[in-house]
């Protein structure tokens, strides 16, 4: 599903690549320090395993139509599950490993790729999810809707940032309007797929270990008393 998003070398010119590389470095430095605050001394092993999870998820193929399948990008998914700081760090490390070990995404395009997917992707997804947190905490359907919208918006906005980078540093023969229409239209479709799968995945985690869903943290479920009479059941323990 993300075929069109790993930018290669030469798609944008050198100064643009350098500028976005700088933004990526600053963003990641911030993410490193905030991720430590989120996970304390468990940071390295937990983030390491979540990163391995993201990597494995990108190898799992989902059906779209007969003959066509795609894989999850996972930006909104990790933002909702582990929070934006650890999430963006994980996605950035996945991108760096893909560039260095798998020749997937150019070395000079690493900065632009990190900005699109690890910073913009994860934080837009998280922003949408936080804006809809009230709905997400109310019911399971609300949580699924939140995850769907977060993943959809995150995919489309990441594509828009790519168009912005292309407008700044591409060699602009094709009108930006055409590129915008093509990329945003394509990623609207990709985003629907990403949204459906993200929602189903978040729903599955929330039904087994709701305490692991970062978005739902800080809202302990109200104590449910089950029994014949509320007062009697309460005092029986």
């Amino acid at each position, binding site marked *: 599903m993300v075929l069109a998003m790993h930018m*290669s070398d030469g798609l944008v010119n050198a100064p643009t690549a350098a500028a976005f590389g700088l933004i990526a470095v600053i963003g990641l430095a911030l993410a490193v320090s905030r991720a430590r605050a989120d996970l304390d001394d468990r940071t390295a092993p937990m983030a390491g395993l979540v990163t391995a999870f993201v990597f494995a998820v990108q190898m799992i193929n989902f059906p779209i139509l007969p003959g066509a399948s795609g894989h999850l990008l996972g930006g909104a998914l990790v933002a909702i599950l582990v929070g934006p700081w650890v999430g963006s760090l994980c996605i950035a490390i996945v991108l760096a490993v893909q560039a260095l070990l798998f020749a997937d995404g150019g070395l000079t395009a690493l900065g632009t790729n990190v900005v699109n997917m690890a910073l913009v992707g994860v934080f837009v997804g998280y922003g949408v999810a936080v804006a809809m947190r009230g709905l997400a905490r109310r019911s399971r359907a609300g949580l699924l809707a939140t995850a769907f919208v977060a993943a959809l918006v995150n995919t489309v906005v990441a594509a828009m940032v790519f168009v912005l980078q292309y407008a700044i540093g591409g060699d602009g023969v094709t009108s930006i309007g055409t590129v915008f229409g093509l990329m945003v239209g394509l990623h609207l479709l990709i985003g629907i797929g990403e949204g459906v799968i993200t929602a189903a995945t978040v729903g599955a985690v929330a039904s087994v270990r709701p305490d692991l869903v970062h978005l739902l943290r800080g809202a302990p479920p109200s104590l449910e008393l089950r029994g014949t009479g509320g007062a009697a059941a309460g005092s029986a323990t």
Partner: protein
Amino acid sequence: MGAGHAHPLYRPGTSPVHRLPSEVKIVAAFLGVVCVVATPREAFPVFGGYLLLLGAVWAVAGIPVGWIARRSLIEAPFVVLAVLLPFTGAEPRVEWLGLSLSEPGLLTAWNILIKGTLGVLTSLTLASTTPLRDLLLGLQRLHAPSLVVTIATLMLRYIDVIAAEALRMRLARISRGHDPRFLWQAGATARGVGALFVRSYERGERVHLAMLSRGWVGEMPRLSDATTTGRHWAIGLAPVGVALALAVTGWIIT
């Protein structure tokens, strides 16, 4: 490292390129691609020079050209984008085999194709001559934040475990008759991904406790005591010097 810790693009070997310290190779590959990206697109012969330079490195490293060529197909999605440009680009247009193609569109497509291809070829050269452990050591020596290197180390140690877990889940689904064709049938796979997350997270908690009980103090032990000398840098950066000369030539002839 034993079996299971080698990445799929690595070709074991003892050539001078393999023996070069990995931080030298990472810097050389990065600077080489910077030279390629900075070359003006009209300097056609210069790009041939870059290919010859890469060919020389492959000859020294003992990598067959066919092996590299097959793996460079990873770039294919961008070729699709590049193919569209000559048809959608601006005036003036040229006639070719009865097709009306945009001249600036053709130039842009060429630019994306050649620079993207050279980038992929450079990355493949780095990946095929550098084992995982060396790559991490190189990042450590290049002063990447130690937390990032540690996370990357643990991720690469556990990726095979997590991927094997995902594969077992898939086999379990298939052996129970799971054959999804449409997006709305993806529920079982997505629930599997949810379970995979819970298992990865809980494994992380166990790994953390295991590390603590073995004396983890927040730093990975140093992976190697070998030192990098100025000679290593001189050897590794020699191809970059050639690339820089090519880039400058490109600027002069256009």
